[in-house]
């Protein structure tokens, strides 16, 4: 080994372990220094005193691979792991992938990258060629396990936050006491709060399973695991060895009880969130139906197909954007919403003018005719787009999720909730403040009187039907984000939407809102108890029983005109 290599290794270690003046971003380092002055000073002393020893031990460890024996390799991996050298990770991963070569004569070790580039393992410097005598360092199963564990531990020091977090989680799960010094080292340098917490909990897990840890340490560890408070913490506590001191065992039991009750609470919150999310979907699907049914007394069985048309509009928009303007993909939904409203709305007006207009006063026939229409629309879409599911992508701002306490909230569900509430509010405002809204309300309350006052009821009918269908279309845009876009998309929502309308009552949008969220939440709370299918059946039965009490729904219109 050359002095240059040693110096280089030392330099790298220095730079990695304690970021001092060599770092180009000095200001950040100074800030960090000021923040953690004491910790770093302490570590610096340790590092400086051991630096020579470490550097040589690192190089010796690397050279051990050249011995070509499994035992030596294992020892080398163990030493590399605790060396804290930034090269350690790439060396060990190269060993795992069979890309690590060693030259017996010079005791030099090389890494062959996947693209064929050769680097010196000890220094990380590129090397032009490898000596011909160099051979692959071999592995056996036992060594492979050691390598995997070492890699898991080593990623604790990875520059990438997610990798560090995952490594901390994996240490928490396997609570291997060998990782303790590494975790301690990582804890000292860690700056990210989340990772720091994860590391602390991982350390606690190790301490709990370490037989020679003191009782006080273990109690602290129990408290730390309790603070984590999720399913995994519970699993860890329940798998604790039996030889704990009584105080620790008591602490663990009470921690488990508190975690359990906490988790039960969170699971209720989670169910409620799922329920609200389902409710928002139902609201979107049912709100247009409520308008057409409420104002015109028309049961539109093709409503689900309007939803489907909206979803297919989204697909077409995304397809066009992918072909012509891939950069615009994130805006695809913003373009799709008005287009879907127009497409479904125009088809709605056409349907009203050509079919439904002739069937006023014959609700049962309207139901049949619109059912026929739904068959035609479905088959038309099937003919044009094929019977299979179509791929509709999530824009980046709608994909992913975030954690809130112990529950995970996906962005697309959250956006759909906001979207449905926005649609509801806009519709409500429209009914309340615009002329069309006024006319629609008048027609709902008393068609003949409205006509006598000079409202063109048939025009209002056409616009109402167009509006209801248009809203179904934008519901389709939202549903395309969480459901399969297929010709059958609408059918799966139609019965549920009807249930919402029947439950909430017609002629009042608030009824639809309350109905949708009640049914959504009730459904999700019944699901864990009774299973998805039985839960749904239970809901249907409950609605049938509910109708006994209030045949016209929760928010029924009152008055003489209702029965007409």
């Amino acid at each position, binding site marked *: 080994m050359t002095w240059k290599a040693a110096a280089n290794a030392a330099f790298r270690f220095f730079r990695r372990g304690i970021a001092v003046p060599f770092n180009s971003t000095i200001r950040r380092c100074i800030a960090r220094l000021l923040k953690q002055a004491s910790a770093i000073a302490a570590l610096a002393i340790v590092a400086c005193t051991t630096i020579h020893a470490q550097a040589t031990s690192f190089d010796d460890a690397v050279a051990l691979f050249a011995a070509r024996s499994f035992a030596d390799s294992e020892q080398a991996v163990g030493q590399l792991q605790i060396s804290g050298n930034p090269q350690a990770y790439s060396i060990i991963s190269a060993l795992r992938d069979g890309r690590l070569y060693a030259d017996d004569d010079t005791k030099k070790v090389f890494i062959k990258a996947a693209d064929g580039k050769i680097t010196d393992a000890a220094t990380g410097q590129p090397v032009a060629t490898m000596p011909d005598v160099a051979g692959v360092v071999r592995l056996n199963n036992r060594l492979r396990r050691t390598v995997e564990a070492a890699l898991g531990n080593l990623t604790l020091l990875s520059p990438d936050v997610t990798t560090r977090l995952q490594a901390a989680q994996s240490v928490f799960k396997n609570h291997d006491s060998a990782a303790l010094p590494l975790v301690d080292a990582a804890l000292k340098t860690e700056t990210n709060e989340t990772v720091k917490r994860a590391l602390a909990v991982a350390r606690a897990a190790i301490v709990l399973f370490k037989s020679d840890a003191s009782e006080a340490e273990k109690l602290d560890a129990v408290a730390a695991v309790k603070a984590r408070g999720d399913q995994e913490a519970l699993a860890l506590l329940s798998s604790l060895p039996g030889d704990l001191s009584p105080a620790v065992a008591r602490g663990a039991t009470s921690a488990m009880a508190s975690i359990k009750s906490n988790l039960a609470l969170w699971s209720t919150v989670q169910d409620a969130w799922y329920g609200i999310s389902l409710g928002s979907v139902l609201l979107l699907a049912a709100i247009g139906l409520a308008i057409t049914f409420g104002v015109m007394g028309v049961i539109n069985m093709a409503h689900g197909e309007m939803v489907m048309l909206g979803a297919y509009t989204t697909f077409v928009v995304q397809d066009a954007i992918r072909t012509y303007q891939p950069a615009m993909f994130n805006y695809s939904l913003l373009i799709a919403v008005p287009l879907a409203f127009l497409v479904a709305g125009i088809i709605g007006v056409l349907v009203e003018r050509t079919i439904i207009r002739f069937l006023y006063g014959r609700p049962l026939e309207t139901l049949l005719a619109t059912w*026929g229409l739904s068959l035609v629309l479905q088959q038309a879409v*099937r003919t044009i787009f094929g019977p299979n599911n179509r791929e509709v992508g999530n824009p980046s701002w709608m994909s992913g999720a975030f954690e809130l306490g112990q529950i995970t909230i996906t962005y697309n569900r959250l956006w759909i909730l906001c979207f449905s509430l926005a649609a509801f509010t806009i519709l409500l405002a429209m009914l309340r403040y615009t002329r069309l809204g006024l006319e629609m309300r008048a027609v709902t309350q008393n068609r003949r009187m409205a006509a006598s006052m000079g409202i063109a009821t048939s025009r209002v009918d056409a616009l109402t039907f167009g509006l209801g269908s248009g809203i179904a279309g934008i519901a389709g845009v939202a549903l395309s984000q969480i459901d399969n876009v297929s010709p059958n998309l609408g059918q799966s929502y139609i019965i549920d939407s009807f*249930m919402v309308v*029947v439950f909430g009552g017609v002629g009042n949008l608030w009824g639809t809102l309350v109905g949708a969220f009640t049914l959504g939440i009730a459904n999700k709370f019944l699901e864990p108890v009774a299973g998805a299918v039985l839960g749904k059946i239970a809901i*249907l039965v409950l609605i049938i029983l509910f109708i006994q*009490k209030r045949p016209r729904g929760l928010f029924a219109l009152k008055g003489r005109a209702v029965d007409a």
Partner: protein
Amino acid sequence: MRHTLTRSLDRSATTFLLIVAGAGILLPLSNLLLPASSPLHVPTYVMTLFGKYVCYAVLALSIDLIWGYCGILSLGHGAFFALGGYAMGMYLMRQIGPRGVYADPVLPDFMVFLNWKTLPWYWYGFDMFWFAILMVVLVPSLLAFCFGWLAFRSRVTGVYFSIITQAMTYALLLAFFRNDFGFGGNNGLTDFKDLLGFNVQASGTRAALFATSCLLLALSFLMCRAVVRSKLGKILIAIRDAESRTRFLGYRVESYKLFVFTLSACIAGLAGALYVPQVGIINPSEFAPGNSIEAVIWVAVGGRGTLVGAALGAVVVNYAKTLFTSGALAPYWLFMLGALFILVTLLLPKGLVGTWYAWREGRQRAALSLDADSAAFEDSGVKPHMAE
């Protein structure tokens, strides 16, 4: 005037019964007695196909009874049909006995497959034919009675009723799809062997089933006709046309509705029971809401409130369906069906038979008034009286 209308109904009813009886006798005879080479020979599969149509016709009759005469549009009548079918299917499953794939003497194959050890209690008794037939009648009637009692009592009418019946059949669809429900789950009941000791695949049994279906059609027709022509039937029509007014006249509307709804479900159940041995399978898709709505359109095509029309519509639409879905036109069948829904409701609200009646009535009326006109012309001075 009224006299001629009754006579025309009578004549069509007689024609209808004659056709049904003729088909019920001639088709099986031709199938069994004539050699396969004869041009008049009816192959077994054609007979079975028509047997299916006849069962559909009975279902259509049951729907016409409530929709055409009482104004109750049930979008869940397929559920009663399927329940009757399941009861019969359970009997047929029990008849398989040890001949199943797993050769269990008591448990049907799917239960052995699901690792069930004993027969669920609701399968008891289905090894006896009379019990199965009793259930075929009782289960749909009981469901209809409970459902109707709840619905009519709280005055759920019109589209609301249609929607909750649709929800009912949807709920049953979901339930029967479940394996642990004990009715074969997704696959349903199939692979039948014997019916009353006769092989269900044999032509003789098929012929007998066809004849029985025709008999059931004739009997249900006579029964529905008896109901709608009685005083009870007049009240049903009154309920259809003005429910509140009938109520105010002192009739207990909900009792009438409940009676006719239950009767209708019972007929639908019987139709399902005869349907299953002929098609050889019953599975949850029979509960699909789409099926029930399709049955309603048969009635609409034939003519609601005519009974004969309902049966005719079922046969015509299903014949067209077989014709279209088997050939190159298969992708267009749904367009056809959808267009049928729209066009019939828009252009032919009385259906085929109803339009035919109206046309004949119009012609007779015209003839009458022509007579009256000419009489008035000859005997001037007396003002011509229009009929009625």
